[in-house]
């Protein structure tokens, strides 16, 4: 079965919404893909290092948010949007330990499923502090990226 990974999905979305960040995608996204919970905590905590800069919120890269949103979307797809957990012990263990899925099977998603993907991405992006318009664009880009994966394009 063909699968789509968080890494590939995030990269495809960055390519669509912020192509200028593609050059630094790998090192920037790596912490958010490897240890999303820890990296998110660090992202929310803000910067107050001694002799640091204390960078404000005005300027941010899109890549970290895309990586985190992509992770949530892949986990949701893998789990069937919170429906009964089926398909083995591994998934149950992952749910219990609150770990995220790293890939989801690619199939012909229904319109309803794609709408749920979009809603999940939108909620998650807004929770990460992304403004409404930008979050909408990001959610749309994720749906498009999934469709491109399904069609085997890109």
């Amino acid at each position, binding site marked *: 079965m063909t699968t789509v990974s968080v890494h590939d999905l995030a990269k495809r979305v960055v390519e669509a919404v912020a192509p200028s960040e593609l050059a630094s995608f790998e090192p920037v996204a790596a912490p958010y893909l490897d240890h999303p919970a820890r990296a998110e905590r660090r992202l929310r905590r803000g910067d107050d290092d001694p002799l640091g*800069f204390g960078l404000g919120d*005005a300027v941010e890269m899109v890549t*970290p948010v895309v990586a985190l949103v992509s992770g949530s979307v892949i986990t949701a797809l893998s789990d069937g949007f919170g429906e009964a957990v089926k398909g083995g012990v591994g998934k149950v263990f992952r749910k219990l330990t609150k770990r995220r899925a790293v890939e989801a099977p690619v199939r012909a998603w229904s319109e309803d499923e794609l709408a749920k993907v979009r809603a999940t991405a939108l909620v998650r992006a807004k929770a990460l502090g992304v403004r409404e318009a930008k979050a909408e664009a990001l959610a749309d880009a994720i749906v498009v990226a999934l469709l491109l994966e399904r069609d085997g394009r890109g």
Partner: protein
Amino acid sequence: MRPPSRLEVRSFPSDTTPLLVLLAAMVLSNVLFAAIWLAGLDYGGATVGNVLTKLEIPLSPALAGWGLLVWWRLRRSIPLATTPFTEAAAVIGRLVAEARLKTRPDVRLGPRLGRRAFVTGTPGRPLLLMGPELLGLCTTGERGRVVFEAVVRHELAHLRAGDLTGYQVVTVLRATIPTTGFFVLLTAWLGLVYDDASAADVLVAAGCVAVQALIAELVARAYLRAREHQADLHATRYGDEEGLLDAIGDAPVARSWLRRHPGGAARASALADPGRLLATAPAQLLLGAIAAGSALITLHHLLVNADSPENAAVLTGVLVGVPLALFAAFGIWRATWRATTAGERPRTVLSAAVLFMGLVVGGRIALFPIAFGGKGLPLTWPLLTAYAVASLLLCLWLTAMGRAWYRHDPRARRLRVFLAYAVPATAIVGGWTFAVLWTWSAHLIDDPASTAARSTVRDLAFGVIPVLVVLIVAATTAGPALRSRVPLATAIVGALAAAGGLYWLHDAVTTTRVSTVEIREVLTATPGGCTPPPTPRPAPTERRTACAADGSEHYDLGPAALTTVDVLTAAAVQDTGSGSFVVEVTLTPDGATRWAALTETLVNKRAAIVVDDVVESAPYIAEPLRGAQFQISQPGMTSGTALALADRITGR
């Protein structure tokens, strides 16, 4: 382009440097106390070499901690040159070259640093660590590049200003408090288990450790916030201000006094109006005053074991008083310029209240003296009033001095001229003020019933130095105003004439009273009170009778072998063996010869030391005594009574 600031902010002396000096005084006096205590437990006692060795114990964990932190950061980062961020590396290389640093930093990528960037390492090997998100900004377009350059310039400004050294010092200082605190709590615990200490004593000790740790942490954060503002100003001086404003944002932060960075809103307003940075927060003055109060107590307990009580008190007052006065002065002058420029009134009374409060609080939280059963600052009304009045007068004078110069130099263009005379003047007046106050406090700590305090304070408060202080206060306050009206030569001649006149007046009204000192052989000693009273003073060559100071004996004495002319000086000192106070008399060379001859003839007999017709001591001479010094000891002699007797002998 930002319009030029009205005030030359960079001309003003930093108020964080004396704050660090006061923190260092508080922490290092604790470290020294711990080292002396540990050395005292060793075979051989607290010798200089032993104490120096023991200094490693409280200091080494802090230094090792700093080293480990740098090592850990190095381990978790990789050289930027080995990463895909080639363009960012090239930009940083250019900016480093522009900054003309003495030591080029090792620029590294911290893979988990996100959008953070900071400088670390040691002054000899600085590191600039940057996260991938920040480095990525360099290639995300024009706006990202501008922000990236602003951040790098800001970090390089930290290195250029030597902030790494300051931060290393402050980190080691605050990391030393837990180590010294451990020894304090250990002492308190041992007192609880083996001595008569109570659980409340342990709690008080723990509370003092916690408060000192908090003070150190708050000072460190205040220092860092001040340096961030300076780095911002430096970054805009050589780069694009818009990029910096973009990077810092404009969000205010909650509890800004707890953070290491000021909030975005505060940074943006400081960039728009750098004069805002001159307004020193009263909380910062409070921190410095608390550190000074604690250092006064600890330093006094250290010095009193090494020197005579009066010298220890004066030295303590000067050592802590000078940096404290300068700290207050820098804060007040900065605030005076800022407030006057903005059309506000300087908060002089508030500054004085904060200074007074800090000294009192600091005087009650000193670690080691409290752990060893010593006393904090005595809370008597006369003393507290003196501290309050002195704080107020000092702050009023500093404000008046600042305002007097402000009228001639409102933009602070010639502030160097002002500082050239105002700083030494503040050091003298502040050192003298705290020497007087602390001498009084020290006497009350050592012996609350002593009347010697009054005489010592009187000596300090009505001598030659006070005349100088009055002249300094008058000249620095009125000087700038008179400068344009009175020629300089006339002012100098007038000042010298005034000084001479005041000195003559002082000399005329103070009479020197020299006591009569004699050392005679005791021919007979009869127990009991002195009846009839001693005869009028006979000539030194004649025999005489005299009474013991406590009236327990009266003596028939032989002719005087030594007299006042043989005495060089006398001082109250603490006996290192018994811990009690004695008066140490130093003889002239002729006196020492006569003293040796007298004690040789008086072996197994008694000699009487007669001061103003009273036998202060009548010791048995067990063997001939050679040397120019001897000690007068009395049962229950305190520092106050020892000092009073020493003063009588030397005629003070």
